[in-house]
């Protein structure tokens, strides 16, 4: 596998959210707004890239590897928790409103299954550079997935997309044209489950259609 494939596999083939269904809690809770999804994506990108890099460095040195092996999960958790604390402090200092709206889900990045999962499945057995690239790809795939969900929810729920106070995209005229008001249930918790279910079903349908086409092409040959 070359590095380009390694980077892009996180987007489609092994997307952490849509294919492996990991990291559900934040992706249901904070996708009420596109700006939250961007903030969460940046935080996960930072933590996942560096945690993969650090853990891979630890596991690639023979001395540290033997030292760490019996207690590797606690060591991973400490590495991840330290990185999350850095994110938490930076966000509190410079992005107060984002810090408030993400709330408890910033410290909870520690127990996000994607990060621990990549540490155990990839970073502990690969070279540092490959691991960092894998982390970046996976984090961008996750960001891409929560962006889709939050776009869906914010447009249906409030009729416009606001990013840091500016109306970036106002689609209110479509709702006016159809003579309906925005469906505010999509901003509520119920909407999170519904939107995720429909998006996931769409992804599954597209994938299985692709598989069938491939199988048919294989049979024709």
């Amino acid at each position, binding site marked *: 596998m070359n590095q380009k494939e390694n980077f892009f596999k996180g987007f489609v083939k092994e997307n952490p959210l849509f294919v492996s*269904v990991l990291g*559900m*809690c*934040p992706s*249901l*809770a904070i996708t009420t707004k596109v700006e939250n999804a961007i903030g969460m994506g940046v935080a996960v990108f930072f933590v996942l890239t560096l945690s993969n890099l650090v853990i891979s460095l630890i596991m690639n040195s023979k001395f540290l590897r033997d030292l760490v092996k019996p207690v590797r999960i*606690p060591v991973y*958790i*400490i590495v991840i*928790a*330290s990185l*999350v*604390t850095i994110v*938490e*402090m930076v966000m509190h200092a410079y992005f107060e409103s984002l810090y408030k709206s993400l*709330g*408890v889900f910033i*410290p*909870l990045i*520690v*127990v*996000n*299954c994607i990060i*621990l999962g990549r540490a155990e499945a990839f970073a502990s057995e690969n070279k540092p550079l490959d691991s960092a690239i894998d982390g970046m790809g996976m984090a961008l795939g996750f960001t891409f997935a929560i962006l889709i969900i939050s776009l869906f929810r914010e447009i249906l729920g409030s009729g416009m997309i606001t990013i840091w106070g500016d109306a970036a995209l106002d689609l209110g005229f479509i709702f006016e044209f159809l003579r309906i008001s925005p469906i505010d249930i999509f901003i*509520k*918790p*119920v*909407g*999170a*489950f*519904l939107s*995720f*279910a*429909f998006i*996931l*079903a*769409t992804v*599954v*349908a597209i994938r*299985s259609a692709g598989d069938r086409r491939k199988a048919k092409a294989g049979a024709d040959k």
Partner: protein
Amino acid sequence: MSDLVQLAFMAFIVENIILTKFLGICPFLGVSRKRSSAIGMGLAVLFVILISSMVTWVLYNYVLATLELTYMRTIAFILVIAALVQMVEIFLKKVSPALYKALGIYLPLITTNCAVLGVAILNINNNHSFVETVVYATFISLGFILVMYIFAMIREKLDFSPVPRAFKGTPIALIVAAILAIIFSRFGGII
């Protein structure tokens, strides 16, 4: 006293941990195929959430706050929880092998259950007193058990229902969760 009752009711039903706070979704979808395993997981979570909330509350208010190390909260809490789960496991193995056998496979999974760390942090963020912490932790976990149980019952039936192919598995489970979330949020009118 009435404040405590209200807090308990909110934690139990209206602000249910799974359906409105989205914590503990992984065990909710993963371990809810059978009623017996739902109850097993629920009891293990109740046990760990209750003890870890009390320990982290004391740790935060008497150690981290006095030493002005509150920014170490996340690291300290996750270490406490991981150690606690391990200790509970060893303790149960020695004292009550039957309970250990029943909870056995669920205990290690709890360290990465975001409900445990989530409740510990929510107790600090909401400035709960020690009594409020105990009540909140207990009723949040009872709410977790209730929803897991209801969901497992529905899911046992769901296995025999005709579901569109794309919706099989997780998507249909999420739709059921959405319907449950509507029902639970309507209880807010009582208060």
